[in-house]
């Protein structure tokens, strides 16, 4: 049991070591703008724009549920307009970034791992290298940059959608007026809430795309290997999102 735990932690340490090298190689490819420059906009569309529907879908329902939960929790002692405060705060600080991140770990991370994994097992990555391309510049950088840039944008839209739907739910299903909802929304709001949510989102975007690229390019052994890389990407990304979420709360939210 202890030995198994030991083996697992050695495995994880080793994995992080390889990942560290991988990140360093990717950063070293940054000056090679000619290779990744042309790729970045198509990638931003694929990772960003195409992810919007699922992100907004999740956000819409989260907003509705948050409004109802808030009104259910608020007792007679607390005025109803707190519903607005709760919806706003939880959306911006936590649920917007984390729920979107988890959903996109599935959509974006798995997609990258499967694509690069197939390229690896069909020797397309080898072919790239023999044609004097650096896979870090050609494949990894555009994806990681697009992820890091587009995640905050997607999450910003998700936050707006969640709050909007929270307002719709509050005004139609609950005895709250628009003025009250807005009053609650403004009550505890500080601009840092949004900044915090967006910084988190950028870090999620970076981690998800990096893990997808790393596991994809390290795929071994045919279709089964590709499936394995895809699954592991989703699992590791989800874990890393939760770890990072705690990390940012500890470093940025303590007084």
């Amino acid at each position: 049991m202890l030995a198994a735990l030991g083996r697992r932690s050695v495995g994880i340490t080793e994995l992080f070591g390889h990942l560290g090298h991988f990140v360093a190689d990717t950063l070293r490819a940054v000056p090679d703008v000619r290779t990744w420059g042309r790729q970045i906009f198509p990638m931003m569309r694929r990772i960003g724009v195409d992810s919007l529907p699922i992100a907004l879908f999740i956000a819409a329902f989260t907003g509705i549920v948050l409004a109802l939960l808030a009104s259910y929790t608020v007792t007679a002692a607390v005025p109803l307009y707190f519903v607005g405060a709760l919806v706003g705060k939880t959306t911006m600080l936590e649920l917007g970034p984390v729920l979107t991140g988890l959903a996109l770990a599935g959509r974006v991370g798995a997609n990258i791992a499967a694509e690069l994994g197939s390229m690896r097992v069909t020797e397309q990555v080898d072919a790239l290298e023999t044609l004097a391309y650096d896979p870090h510049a050609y494949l990894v950088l555009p994806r990681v940059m697009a992820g890091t840039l587009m995640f905050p944008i997607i999450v910003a839209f998700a936050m707006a959608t969640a709050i909007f739907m929270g307002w719709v739910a509050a005004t139609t299903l609950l005895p709250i007026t628009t003025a009250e909802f807005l009053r609650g929304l403004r009550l505890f709001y500080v601009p840092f809430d949004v900044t915090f949510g967006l910084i988190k989102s950028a870090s999620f975007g970076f981690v998800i795309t990096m893990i997808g690229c790393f596991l994809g390019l390290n795929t071994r052994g045919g279709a089964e290997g590709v499936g394995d890389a895809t699954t592991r990407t989703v699992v590791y990304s989800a874990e890393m999102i939760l770890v990072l979420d705690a990390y940012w709360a500890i470093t940025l939210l303590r007084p």
Partner: protein
Amino acid sequence: MIEFRGLEKAFGAKVVLRGVSLTVRDGETMVIIGGSGTGKSVTIKHVVGLLEPDAGTVAVDGQVVSELRRRELTALRATVGYVFQFAALFDSMTIADNVAFGLRRSGAMSEEQIRERVTESLRLVEMAGTERTMPAELSGGMRKRVGLARAIALRPKYLLYDEPTTGLDPVTSAVIDELMIRTREALGVTSIVITHDMRSAYRVGDRIAMLYEGRIRQEGTVAEIQQSTDPIVRQFIEGRPSVRAEDVAAPGAVPAAEGSQP
């Protein structure tokens, strides 16, 4: 010149190469033959640094590949054309973009020149007119020829062909053999050709080396290999299911004439 010196490579517990030593001289075509899974592909992947040797070295023009820095390795790769066993075409790109891909990298040619070179390369492998097709729409043999076009489009100094004619019909195989011979004559390239097809080996090769159990079993000119008395080599080039007993019993003996077997 490409020199393999005591090349060893294992994947986990599986030892593939146990000390391959072979010299490919400038301007010659070296054919590597050997059974399936003996490590022929693994051997030539070391030439462009796709694999790192466990021991031994591979040197191209005197530069040891595994000791090159990233930039030097990239420069070396730009002089080597690699035809992959299963083509390895980029399936997200059209055929034209596949062939143009390496040309765009160097930045030395205009789009106009690239287009001309692509058309010409595709014509050489008898794939003219497929420019706008996607790889998935082609048959295995057609993809293989596009892979060949992609490699020769670069006009490299070295060409590594991993089974260029396997899976092609006899006529197309002969066309590809012709193309390899002409490419060598026109561009003076040094090539390594991996093949199972002995007819093709005799046609394109200056010398032939047989890889067996992780080492070079025999190396020699086409004539030398054809007259080999090594039972393992004879078995392979004649395509017999087992080693002939009398060859083993009398190593070094001149093999019996064809047709004298019961």
